[in-house]
């Protein structure tokens, strides 16, 4: 992997982290963000490393912890932030909020708030590509908690029966809200659930962006070659609570520190850049500064943006039939 690409990954991961930290402040200290807010801090390597492996036309669909994916597909931070603040200039015009970011031109179909439901939508996107005979694939993300709902099982089975080009990406952060895998799931390894549907699965160190990228590239390649659905279990960790207001009392003491101190995905990539690519520390600091400016500008843009006009309340209930054939 060339240095420029790695610096870009570093930039994206730092952007996600700073963006999330700032969002947390805007919610808790300034009251500018309302509703739900699920932060992606700790899991940055998964969104950035997987999305780096996709080509144009491949679909991205994920659950409600979607800010990282939205930034990684290239939605400008200003539009993501404006959406969190409910502004007209937001990624979806203030209609979706934190859980429902999306961008058609980037084939990023959203953020979905109902656990597991979008796994069936992603399966349908893969079905559409197979139907049309393209070599596009779908990257479908969900948490470990979603593997216990019916949508997950029906979708995996359907995708396997029809050999659909979909990579199921389980972001295993050990907890579904506050309930640990051990308490909620009979199978402790998520890949074992995929195995039941004869879907090849692999556990991946989700804190190591190189491992994430490599595994995703292989899985996508298998899909494109018509080998049917693939399953990746990204072992990762969410540093913050499930959502704002979660004080994470369910975690054993020291667990977070251990992940953060020993496995942090940004620190891991940073070390790699410094040692293997002889990047100067000053260059990374420059990126950090650039990101802070980017986030500041995103907040400024959002502050200055108008709220959605009240006379748009009823727009888009139904899709336009202007181009219906």
């Amino acid at each position, binding site marked *: 992997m060339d240095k420029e690409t790695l610096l870009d990954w570093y930039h994206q991961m730092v952007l996600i982290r700073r963006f999330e930290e700032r969002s947390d402040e805007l919610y808790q200290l300034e009251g500018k963000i309302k509703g739900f807010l699920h932060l992606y801090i700790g899991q940055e390597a998964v969104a950035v490393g997987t999305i780096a492996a996709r080509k144009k036309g491949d*679909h991205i*669909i994920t659950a409600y912890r979607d800010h990282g994916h939205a930034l990684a597909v290239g939605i400008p931070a200003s539009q993501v932030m404006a959406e969190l603040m409910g502004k007209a200039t937001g990624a*979806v*015009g203030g*209609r*979706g909020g934190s859980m*429902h970011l*999306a*961008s*058609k031109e980037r084939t990023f*179909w*959203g953020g*979905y708030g*109902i656990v597991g*439901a*979008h*796994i*069936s*939508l*992603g*399966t*349908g*996107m*893969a*079905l*559409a*590509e197979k*139907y*049309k005979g393209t070599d596009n694939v779908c990257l479908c993300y969900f948490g470990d908690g979603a593997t216990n709902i*019916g*949508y997950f099982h*029906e*979708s995996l*089975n*359907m995708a396997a*029966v*029809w050999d659909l080009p979909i990579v199921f990406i389980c972001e295993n952060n050990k907890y579904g809200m506050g309930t640990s895998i051990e308490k909620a799931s009979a199978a402790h390894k998520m890949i074992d659930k995929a195995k039941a549907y004869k879907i090849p699965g692999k556990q991946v160190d989700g804190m190591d962006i190189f491992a994430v990228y490599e595994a995703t590239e292989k899985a996508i390649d298998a899909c494109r070659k018509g080998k049917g659905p693939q399953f990746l279990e990204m072992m990762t960790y969410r540093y913050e609570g499930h959502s704002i207001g979660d004080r994470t009392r369910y975690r054993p003491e020291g667990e977070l520190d251990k992940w953060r101190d020993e496995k942090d995905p940004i620190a891991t990539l940073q070390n790699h850049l410094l040692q293997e690519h002889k990047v100067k520390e000053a260059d990374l600091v420059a990126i950090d500064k650039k990101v802070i400016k980017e986030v500041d500008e995103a907040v400024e843009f959002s502050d200055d943006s108008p709220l959605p006009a009240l006379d748009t309340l009823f*727009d*888009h*209930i*139904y*899709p*336009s*039939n202007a*181009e*219906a*054939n």
Partner: protein
Amino acid sequence: MARLTLREAITEALREEMRRDENVFIMGEEVGAWGGTYAVTKGFLEEFGENRVRDTPISEMAIAGAATGAAMAGTRPIAEFMTINFAFVAFDAIVNHAAKVSYMFNGQFDCPIVFRAPGGGGKQLGATHSHTPDVIFAHFPGLKVVCPATPYDAKGLLKSAIRDNGPVLFIEPVALYTSPKVRDEVPEEEFTVPLGVSDVKREGSDVTIITYGEGLHVSLDAAKALAKEGIEAEIIDLRSLQPLDMGPVIESFKKTFKAVVVEFGHQTYGIGAEIAARLQDEAFDYIDAPIKRVAQYDVPAPYSGELERAALPNADRVIAAVKEIL
């Protein structure tokens, strides 16, 4: 012109749309090799092949959800529920996803799906397989809900539904599928019937009967009997429950000043309640009598035939309701 049953009209609409647009395909339980449990898609697998006529696992959540994703990604799926009772299992996919993606993502995404669902009771299938839950689905903005009562409307409405860029729940009254009484002339040349437009099915000046689906035929029978006594009922077929076209209803009511709503779903919170509320809102000064409701009694469908029929609307109940307010 050919004389078609309701089911034949639906089959024709599906076949013609699939021939017309290669993005249209069918997925559902037993739609392929079996030919559809009600034989609606008989011969389709042979004509269109496995890619376009997809037998699915028994997975209603995934059928509705995958159809939604496939629709967003540029195809035009027709997802068939074996019966509307099984759509309950897929309720989230239908009302919380298919019906939401346009609005929630600010109009970026189309979602051209038709959910086909045979519905209604009277076939001695017991409490879980005999629902007329149409109104529940019509409650949610974002989902169009259509239910034809005649072969002509069935063909024309289904074609419009398939060509619509948003999700449409197309409810097919099973009791009418092969009924000889419902058989009707259907033009062979291309035509469509617009969604969201009510239709006057019988003219009259004494009372307005508002109905749809199976209710139309019960109402027509009642009107025929009433006419012998000199009472002329005007009958409005709603055809679409969402969007609901009140135009012809209000117009008729302003002429008759009296209304009876006939529906096969349960009475409580039914279409009748909605129509009555709108009439008092929009035509209060024209109300001459209580607006009556003839609906399925609020009881789970029993198995035994006579007992089940006792819960459902019939012409006698419609006649009694009309006479009560004349």
